[in-house]
């Protein structure tokens, strides 16, 4: 599941499962909502229980959209095996972790 909140940053809240079954819809949502943004993106995965490579594509899209707008993309709340997925995939080399 995905929710996007516009506050001091854009908060992209990912929860439950993000996999091949729902990643295309989530990617479409971020593509529509995060174009020409004027603030940074924080991807909150504290409620995310499972992410696969399809789900990582959604995160990658967020990072690319931030980069295109010369903004930064942060990752918040990664834990357990979900965090390991971000580590082994190399995503923590371009996503800054936020407490």
């Amino acid at each position, binding site marked *: 599941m995905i929710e996007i909140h516009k506050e001091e940053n854009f908060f992209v809240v990912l929860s439950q499962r993000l996999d091949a079954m729902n990643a295309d819809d989530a990617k479409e949502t971020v593509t529509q909502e995060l174009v020409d943004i004027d603030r940074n993106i924080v991807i909150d995965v504290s409620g995310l229980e499972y992410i696969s*490579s399809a789900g990582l594509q959604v995160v990658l899209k967020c990072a690319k959209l931030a980069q295109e707008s010369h903004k930064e993309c942060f990752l918040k709340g990664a834990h357990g095996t979900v965090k390991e997925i971000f580590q082994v995939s190399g995503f923590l080399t371009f996503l800054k972790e936020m407490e």
Partner: protein
Amino acid sequence: MTFRAIEEVDRYLDTFCTKHTLNDDLCYRVRLVTEELVTNIFKYTEAQTFDLTVRCLEDIEIDLAYLSNSFDLTVRKPEQKDLADIKEGGLGLFLVESMTKTFSYRHHNGKSIYKLTV
């Protein structure tokens, strides 16, 4: 077809994990590597069906076979240097290799056969 296959795999693995009381981390790994391979089979091959066997021994052993030519899905992802260089797709097999203890492929009697241990 892909979504239905993944749903069926999920149900099968849920039952398997419960039956063998696997912890959450191990169950995640088994689910992830299986889902990634099944997704790639339907995305990149002509196969319409596959055979999946999962065994709980010293490790979790996963066998996945499907009718095919000798196309091997186990191509490594190029090293990522920069965000702009990361192409969409291609991460799945990298995750499979990263999250398994062993990962092998062979082609025999018109079937592609993957053997993984987690």
